[in-house]
């Protein structure tokens, strides 16, 4: 005889989700993740929209990752319409995406995850128990926002990123200001990494499934998926490889892959596929819960990478460029980018007039659903407990390790 336990809303994650705990007798025997976010039906909303409207609308899928949605959408559109952007635009977009990575990771580490380790309910609690950490987190987060704002015009839903280029190119003084901020933050990151590595383990060791990440381009960018199983999937085949299916208990589609293997995307997966030498030890065979450490390491990488991009841009000398001209034409384009939470795919088809006739958007949290549920089940089994509250707390923490972005998943 089984019955389901109380379903609580998930907190300190983006969007609306629940965990359903199934009990057999008094023992919790199974868990299920419900992403019951209200769908906005973006893929349907985009149909019939002209090419220059698609990215503006699509970035509204999610606020935390709006910059990367915008850039992914633009790249897919440009590919479909055969638009080439200047190298400067490419670099600036990369920088904006790195800014998003910094903001999102700082938000997760300091505001959403750290409270779990310090025994408080959220950032207001942190202000009491670890005010310096909160201050540091907010500073890094603000810097990530400033990068996005400098390039995108706004930290959320960046309007300055357009098909073919940018509205206004930031001046060297703006980039220099970013570089100064990045330099300052850079100094503090080794301590942060050490700190996250030193945090006590609170979950039983659960090991992630196979890893999948975008590859073949500069950091976070690329043209194909690479996996820990050695597969290489080109962008235009990625959607069918990810194999999204509708499931009754989730408003987000599930990636079913080949029906056998489950893949993880996101910081741990990315690092797993290219482990930086200095962290090889910490990360080799790391459990799901080391995602906090993974994010701290990625934060450092994002800061380093941003500094490098700025150096390049400043050395080349910034030009005020007009966006590349667009001649509407029919075509299809698919872009892959690493969003903070993992693989993001935007794919569009346009007709002769440049009107969107097909849209497919696959987001990291949707891809991760299978991995999250698998881990939840493993956790419940590992705990083998009748203490409902204990299981519930552990499950919530586990879900947070994946930093799900449910608005993205259900879009």
């Amino acid at each position, binding site marked *: 005889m089984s019955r389901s336990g109380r379903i609580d809303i998930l907190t300190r994650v983006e969007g609306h989700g629940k965990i359903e705990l199934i009990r057999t007798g008094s023992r919790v025997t199974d868990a299920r993740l419900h992403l019951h976010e209200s769908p906005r039906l973006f893929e349907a909303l985009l149909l019939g929209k002209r090419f220059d409207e698609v990215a503006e609308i699509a970035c509204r899928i999610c606020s935390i990752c709006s910059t990367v949605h915008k850039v992914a959408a633009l790249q897919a559109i440009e590919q479909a319409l055969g638009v080439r952007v200047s190298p400067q635009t490419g670099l600036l977009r990369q920088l904006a995406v790195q800014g998003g990575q910094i903001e999102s990771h700082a938000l997760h580490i300091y505001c959403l995850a750290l409270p779990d380790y310090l025994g408080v309910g959220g*950032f207001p609690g942190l202000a009491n128990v670890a005010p310096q950490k909160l201050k540091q987190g907010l500073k890094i987060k603000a810097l990530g926002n400033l990068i996005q704002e400098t390039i995108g015009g706004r930290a959320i839903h960046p309007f300055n990123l357009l098909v073919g280029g940018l509205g206004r190119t930031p001046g060297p003084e703006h980039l220099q200001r970013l570089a100064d901020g990045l330099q300052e933050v850079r100094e503090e990151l080794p301590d942060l990494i050490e700190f996250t590595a030193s945090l006590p383990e609170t979950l039983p060791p659960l090991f992630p499934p196979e890893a999948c990440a975008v590859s073949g381009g500069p950091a976070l960018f690329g043209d194909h998926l690479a996996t820990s199983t050695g597969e290489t999937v080109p962008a235009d085949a990625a959607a069918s490889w990810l194999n999204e299916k509708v499931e009754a208990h989730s408003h987000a589609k599930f990636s079913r892959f080949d029906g056998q293997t489950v893949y993880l995307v996101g910081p741990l997966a990315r690092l797993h596929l290219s482990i930086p030498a200095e962290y090889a030890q910490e990360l080799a065979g790391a459990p799901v819960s080391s995602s906090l450490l993974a994010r701290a390491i990625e934060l450092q990488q994002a800061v380093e990478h941003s500094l490098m991009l700025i150096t390049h841009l400043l050395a080349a000398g910034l030009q005020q460029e007009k966006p590349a001209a667009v001649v509407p034409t029919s075509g299809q384009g698919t872009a892959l980018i690493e969003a903070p939470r993992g693989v993001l795919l935007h794919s569009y088809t346009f007709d002769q007039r440049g009107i969107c006739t097909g849209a497919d958007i696959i987001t990291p949290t949707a891809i991760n659903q299978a991995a999250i549920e698998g881990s939840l089940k493993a956790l419940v089994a590992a705990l083998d407990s009748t203490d409902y509250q204990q299981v519930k707390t552990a499950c919530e923490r586990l879900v947070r390790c994946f930093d799900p972005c449910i608005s993205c998943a259900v879009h």
Partner: protein
Amino acid sequence: MKKLRLAITGLTACSGCQLTLLNCEAELPQLLEKFEFHYFPLACSPAVLKGRYDAALVEGCLSMPHERQLLLALRSQSQLLIAVGSCAVWGGVAALKNGTDRELLRRQVYGQSRTAVGTFSPQPLQSLVTVDAVINGCPPEKKELIGLMSGLLLGSLPVPNDQPVCSDCRMKENLCLLTERAQLCLGPLTLGGCEARCPSQGVPCEGCRGPVPEANLGEALELFLQKEYGRAIVIERLRRFYPEWKS
């Protein structure tokens, strides 16, 4: 002074308005001194809606039945209910195809599956409850959110603005994209307060803050058509954040 007890949540939306609050990094410490973020699922655990709230800040529109329940609960438990962001105020991006049958849209995404069957055409909060004040924008301006918060401390609500984006834009002495560049800029029809963010960077206003009072749609449409924008394109653009524009 006793801290003001807040409920902050989102309905059908992207969390951008709530994130805008979290993006007020400089002001957050001060906010923590004055407000208790009692119900704020995005950032605080646990999230149990309980007791009376001085104010509820609600992001997003209504598109599923359970959201109606939540909104009614927020309304009945809160002294003030504030609609934050264009989705909550106008319907926003999610509502841009409100003219189309929702079931058709649902099937375009989910096929024949019974997933998300309850979804209905997105509606602004005012369609169900009384809203005491609104903050516009997709996303809203930080400045306006902070203004709302400091107003709450005093016991006042924001005075509604009725100047269009063009006014902000002209005050900044920008080049006018509509008259000088014949671009499809929605500045004259759109509620200002964003300091003309987009036109100031040479990007036409996309109307993210919703319509200004007395927006002269007919005449604006005429003007856009003269500048050789097809009717359909103009109408599509107009409806991006506010589905109620009549063509």
